[in-house]
C-alpha cells in the first residue's frame, strides 16, 4: 500500500486532521534539507511536500519563487532532490513524501527514468503544477510505478470539471483555497468550508486544503472541514536565511508545533 493512502487511513481512524508542510528542496541550505525533513516530522508533519526548484515557477508567488532561485543558484536539481529523499528514507520509512514542482525537469529527465528513480528513492507521489488532468497521459509511467498523481482543484474549477477531478483523485486532492498564486491574499473560511464539503463528499481521495494558510488560527478554521491542511509560503518565508541545521530545525518546529496543537485540539 502506498504510504500516502496508509497515512490518510491512520489519520481517519484516529480522527485527526493531517498536517502537510511544503518546503523547497535545497532552501535555505541544501546540505540541511534532510535534517529539515526530519524536523518537519518531529514537529508533527503527516506528509511532506518537497518542492523541486524550477527556473520558471508560473503558479507560485514571490516567496516560493525566491526560494527556488536561491536553491538553483546553489546548483540544486532533481537528482539532488531524489538523493535527499533516499537519505531521508534511511531513518524514516513511514512519512509520505510528495514531490511538488513543474513538468519540465521531469520531462527532461525522462518519464520512465524518473518514475524508476523516484520509487527507488522512496517518493510516494508527485504534484506537477503545470500538468492538469487533460495532459496527464504523459504521467502513465509514473502511475505504473506506483506513484500517486496529486491533482489540484481550485475555486475557479467549473462543476463538471470538479466532478472529473473528484473521480480521478488519488493520494489526496489538493484544493487551493485562493484563486490566485500561492501565498497570496486572505481566504473566506465559510466560503471554502461549503465548497470543500461538496468536494469531500464526492472525491475518491481525501481533500487537503492549502494556499493562504499562515498560522494556527487559519489552520484550525480549515481543520474543521478538511482532511489535511497544507502550509507552504508562510513556512518557507520563516525558514529563509537560516544557515545552521539546528537553526533551521528550530524555526520549523517553532512555526509548525502551534499549528499541530491547534489541529489536534479541535
Amino acid at each position, binding site marked *: 500500500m502506498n504510504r500516502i493512502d496508509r497515512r490518510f487511513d491512520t489519520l481517519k481512524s484516529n480522527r485527526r486532521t493531517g498536517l502537510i508542510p511544503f518546503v523547497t528542496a535545497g532552501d535555505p541550505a541544501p546540505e540541511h534539507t534532510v535534517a529539515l525533513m526530519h524536523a518537519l516530522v518531529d514537529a508533527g508533519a503527516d506528509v511532506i511536500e518537497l518542492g523541486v526548484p524550477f*527556473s520558471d515557477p508560473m*503558479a507560485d508567488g514571490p516567496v516560493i519563487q525566491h526560494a527556488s532561485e536561491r536553491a538553483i543558484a546553489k546548483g540544486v536539481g532533481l537528482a539532488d532532490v531524489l538523493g535527499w529523499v533516499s537519505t531521508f528514507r534511511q531513518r524514516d520509512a513511514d512519512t509520505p513524501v510528495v514531490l511538488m514542482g513543474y*513538468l519540465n525537469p521531469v520531462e*527532461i*529527465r525522462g518519464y520512465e527514468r524518473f518514475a524508476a528513480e523516484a520509487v527507488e528513492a522512496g517518493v510516494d507521489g508527485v504534484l506537477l503544477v*503545470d500538468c*492538469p488532468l487533460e495532459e496527464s497521459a504523459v504521467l502513465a509511467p509514473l502511475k505504473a510505478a506506483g506513484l500517486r498523481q496529486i491533482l*489540484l482543484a*481550485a475555486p475557479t474549477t467549473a462543476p463538471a470539471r470538479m466532478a472529473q*477531478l473528484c473521480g480521478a483523485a488519488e493520494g489526496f486532492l489538493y484544493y487551493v483555497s485562493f484563486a490566485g498564486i500561492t501565498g497570496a491574499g486572505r481566504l473566506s473560511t465559510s466560503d471554502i468550508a461549503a465548497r470543500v464539503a461538496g468536494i469531500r463528499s464526492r472525491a475518491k481521495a481525501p481533500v487537503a486544503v492549502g494556499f493562504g494558510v499562515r498560522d494556527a488560527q487559519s489552520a484550525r478554521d480549515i481543520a474543521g472541514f478538511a482532511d489535511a491542511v497544507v502550509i507552504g509560503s508562510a513556512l518557507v518565508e520563516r525558514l529563509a536565511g537560516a544557515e545552521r541545521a539546528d537553526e533551521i530545525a528550530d524555526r520549523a518546529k517553532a512555526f509548525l508545533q502551534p499549528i499541530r496543537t491547534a489541529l489536534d485540539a479541535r
Partner: protein
Amino acid sequence: MSQDFHRWPDAHGRFGDFGGQYVAETLMAPIAELTEAYLRLREDPEFLAELDRDLKYYVGRPSPIYHAEGLSRHVGGAQILLKREDLNHTGAHKINNTIGQALVAKRMGKPRVIAETGAGQHGVASATVAARFGLKCVVYMGAVDIERQKINVYRMKLLGAEVVPVTSGSKTLKDALNEAMRDWVTNVADTFYIIGTVAGPHPYPMMVRDFNAIVGREAREQMLEQYGRLPDAITACVGGGSNAIGLFHAFLNDANVRIVGAEAAGEGIATGHHAASLAAGRPGVLHGNRTYVLCDDNGQITETHSVSAGLDYPGVGPEHAFLKDAGRAEYVGITDDEALEAFHLLARTEGILAALESSHAVAQAIKLAREMPKDQLVLCNLSGRGDKDVHTIAAREGVQV
C-alpha cells in the same frame, strides 16, 4: 507532402506532439472561457468585419510587397521581396495580433488588459489598442529589457499604459511572461491577457497565429497578382515565432515553397550564448505548452542571448516545433553580427532601417538568394522597423548619438 497543415491544432490545442494546455488548475477556467469565446468569434461575421475594418483603416493594411532591387543586385542571386510589416501603424506586425485580442477582450466584457513584452514592441502594440478601445492596460517588462528599450517604455506610458518592471529570474521576456500569468490568475474576472506571441497554452498559439495569418494570406495573393506565381522560398525571423507563422501559414500546403525560419544564434550556437530554441534546444514544457526549449540537464530554463530583445526567448511557438519535426520548415541560426551586417546593407541599398529582429530574416534571405538563380523569388517578412534599435546599434558600434 500529402498532409493538410491547415488542420492544426486539434481539439486539444495540439500540433502533433506539441502545444496543449500545461497550466495550473487555477488557469483552466479562464482558458476554457477564452477558448469558448474565441472559437465562437473566429466564425462570427460581425467580429471578423470589425477586425477587417480596423486592420484597413487603423493599422493601414494591406502592407505592400516591395521588390528590393538594390539589395538583390548587390547579392547577385535570386530576387528578394520584402513584405513590409514595418509600415503598419506602430511599426511592426505585432498590432495585427493586439487589435484582434483587444476586440476579443471587448466582446468578452473585460475592461482591463495585461501584456508581457520583451523589446517593448508588443507592449506598445497592446498599449496602443488599449487606448484605441478604452481599456485599462498594464504591461509587464523585465528590468533588463526596460533598460535596453527606454524609448518603448516611454511610448507605452504616453499611450496611458502602466509599465511594471519585473526583477525576478533573468529579468527578461520569460520572467515578464511568468509575472503576467500571475496577474491573470489573480485578476481573471475583469482581465484579459494579451499574449504577444504564438506560445502559451491553447488557444493562444492558434489565436495569435490566426490574427497574424493575414500577413501570409495577403502576401500569397499579392505574389499571384504581382508576379503571377508563388515565391520559391519564404523566410522570417523566429523568437516566439508570431511574425514567422503569420507569413508561413498560408504557404504551408504549397509544397514547392521552401520555408526557412531564422533564429537568433547570438554570438554563435557553439558559444552557448544564443536564443535558438529550435536549432539547438530540445522538446520540453514551458509557459503552458510543449515545444522546443533551451534548458540544462536539470530542466532549468537557461538564459538566452541575442542582440535583439524581441528574439531573446528560450522557447518557441509549438506550431514551429511541429513544422520542424514534420520537416515542412527549416530553422537556422543567424548571429548578431550577421543580423547587423544585413541591417546596414538593407539601409544602404534600399533606404530601409529594419528592426534588429527583422534583420535576422533579411540576413537569411540574403543567404538563400545568394544560392539561387536570378529568376527565382525569395519573400522575406520585414516584420518591423528599426527606429527603436538605433541606440542599441550605435552603442554596439561605439558611436555617440
